[in-house]
């Protein structure tokens, strides 16, 4: 794990050096570009006068103390920016995961149980649609239909623009509004979360539903399903307690891996829904050649992904008795 993190850091750092863009253009205004003194001063101030290995060692050293450098654009510490925005992304991604898994598992189970019926075909269409439509198109389309046209769901943002946000404790708007004890604001936050989370979760729901269907088909043919029926168990019990429980390990895997997709998808979703998370931050940073911010976002994203893989592995052990005792 520590080696993986170091790997991410190194890669993120090196990737910025192979890009064509000159970071100076982000720091120094066009007019000052012609002034050698100003350029030299800026280079010295941002450490750009040092060699690449030197910069790398300094960066890693600073990183160990929690310092990710200063953003060219916001002129604030990158660590502060990123951790301020991380909860918004996590809230969106987790909500998307919840929606995606719930829809995906339900559809997968139904499709397998009613294989080759209308239900199965509808689920297949839903999955294919979700996986093939780009997030940004889907986001814009749904935003237009539900918010602009029908007005049944709110527009972009995390809260009604007129509302005063609650004091930030966790950074999760839904939790912070609950902590503040403001039920109305909580519902508003939840309301704002639904559409972006659904847009982001749809593709994941598609993937999960296909996998769950395939696994359920296999499990439903196994003998212990017959045993369960011969015991007098009802169909719901047979399907959920006996069959679905046995597809948990592969399902957890795909949910775990879908996290990477969700993090990437969040970049586009956040941009469309004006969601103040890491994704929109990353887009701004990339536009402005804000290298410290780009590296910071990459590292934090990578570490979050590593952590989810770790959690997935732990969940395996809980779900599969053979691993637990073996």
């Amino acid at each position, binding site marked *: 794990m520590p080696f993986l993190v170091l790997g991410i850091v190194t890669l993120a750092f090196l990737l910025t050096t192979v890009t064509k863009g000159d970071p100076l253009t982000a720091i120094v205004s066009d007019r000052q570009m012609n002034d050698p003194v100003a350029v030299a001063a800026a280079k010295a101030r941002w450490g750009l006068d040092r060699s690449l290995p030197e910069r790398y060692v300094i960066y890693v050293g600073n990183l160990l103390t929690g310092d990710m450098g200063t953003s060219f654009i916001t002129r604030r510490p990158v660590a502060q920016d990123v951790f301020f925005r991380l909860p918004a992304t996590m809230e969106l991604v987790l909500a998307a995961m919840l929606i995606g898994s719930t829809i995906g598992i339900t559809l997968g189970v139904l499709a397998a149980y009613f294989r080759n019926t209308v239900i199965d075909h509808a689920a297949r269409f839903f999955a294919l649609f979700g996986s093939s439509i780009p997030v940004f198109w889907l986001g814009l389309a749904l935003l237009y239909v539900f918010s602009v046209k029908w007005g049944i769901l709110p527009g972009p943002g995390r809260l009604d623009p007129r509302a005063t946000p609650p004091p930030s404790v966790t950074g999760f708007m839904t939790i912070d509004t609950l902590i503040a004890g403001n039920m109305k604001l909580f519902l508003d936050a939840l309301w704002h979360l639904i559409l972006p989370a659904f847009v982001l979760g749809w593709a994941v729901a598609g993937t999960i539903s296909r996998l769950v269907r395939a696994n359920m088909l296999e499990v439903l043919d*196994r003998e212990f399903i017959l*045993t*369960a029926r011969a015991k007098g168990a009802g169909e719901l019990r047979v399907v959920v307690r006996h069959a679905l429980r046995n597809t948990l390990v592969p399902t957890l895997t795909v949910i775990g891996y879908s996290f990477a997709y969700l993090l990437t998808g969040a970049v586009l979703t956040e941009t469309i829904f004006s969601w103040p998370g890491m994704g929109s931050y990353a887009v701004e940073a990339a536009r402005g050649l804000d290298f410290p911010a780009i590296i910071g976002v990459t590292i934090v994203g990578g570490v979050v992904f590593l952590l989810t893989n770790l959690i997935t592995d732990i969940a395996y052990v809980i779900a599969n008795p053979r691993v637990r005792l073996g």
Partner: protein
Amino acid sequence: MQQEPLFAVRDLRVSFTRHGQSFKAVRGISLHVDHGEVLGIVGESGSGKSVGMLSALGLQPKTASVSGSARFNGRELVGMPMAQLRALRGSRIAMIFQDPLSSLNPVMTVGAQIAETIRLHNAGVSKRAAMDRAAELLALVAIPQPDRRIHQFPHEFSGGMRQRVMIAMAVANDPDLLIADEPTTALDVTVQAQIMDVLTDLRRRLNLGLILITHDLGVLAGHADRVAVVYSGEVVEQANVDALFARPAHPYTRGLIASIPNMAEEKERLFSIDGAPPPLGKLPGGCAFHPRCPQAQDICRHVPPPVRSNGDHRAACHFATLPVGSAA
């Protein structure tokens, strides 16, 4: 009229429809079993012996259609509403299957699986009480350290032990009828004998009717009271076990008996019946067995054989060798 038996199947038929074609897996079998009695059903793989019994309990695959009659304690099972069937399954009628590893849920402890059977049919029983009862049941089927074993998973048990767990689960609610589908086929010979002992012992103690489905006539010799021989979805011979082994009336039964390995005699080769059972879609005309029958005559190719009987001994063959007094 004498009292109705515990479980009586009359002219049960099961057919599958696949790609618009209909396959008759079970073509009218009739048999019965009573409390404390062991009925052996013997036949080759695919003869319809398992699917027939499953269908009687409403456990047939979705694509199957079932007709005929299967009465249990005077109640008709064929066409019975699902909820009522479920109430019987696992409670009054229990089943165990061939492969005890795949028949147990790999991600539930064996205790939880037994307790589930109990609680499905006894709403008032607490989880605790059901687990305690599960341990008692494991003790009943002679599994050592039952209190510890109930918390283990199926993969921690050997094949024979798993089959004991299946049996414990089957008898959890004191059923009247136990249908054992090839209960020993997947097990070692020594373990087979132990499992058969457990089954016959439980039959005596709980006075259950036991239906023993097998392809191994040898297993039935020591354990069954009566035997029904099934070929291509039909019962071709049915008799008391001693009568069947002493005076088999159907050529197929004679073939099966001849192919049981015999330790006492030294034979160069084991006897085997020529050919293979006909595929479901292509049943021959007349007697289904005629292409493999050493005594087949012209009549066998064209006329389905009548069932001849002599008391309890019935055989469906034109040339059934029933003792004196046989009538068509």
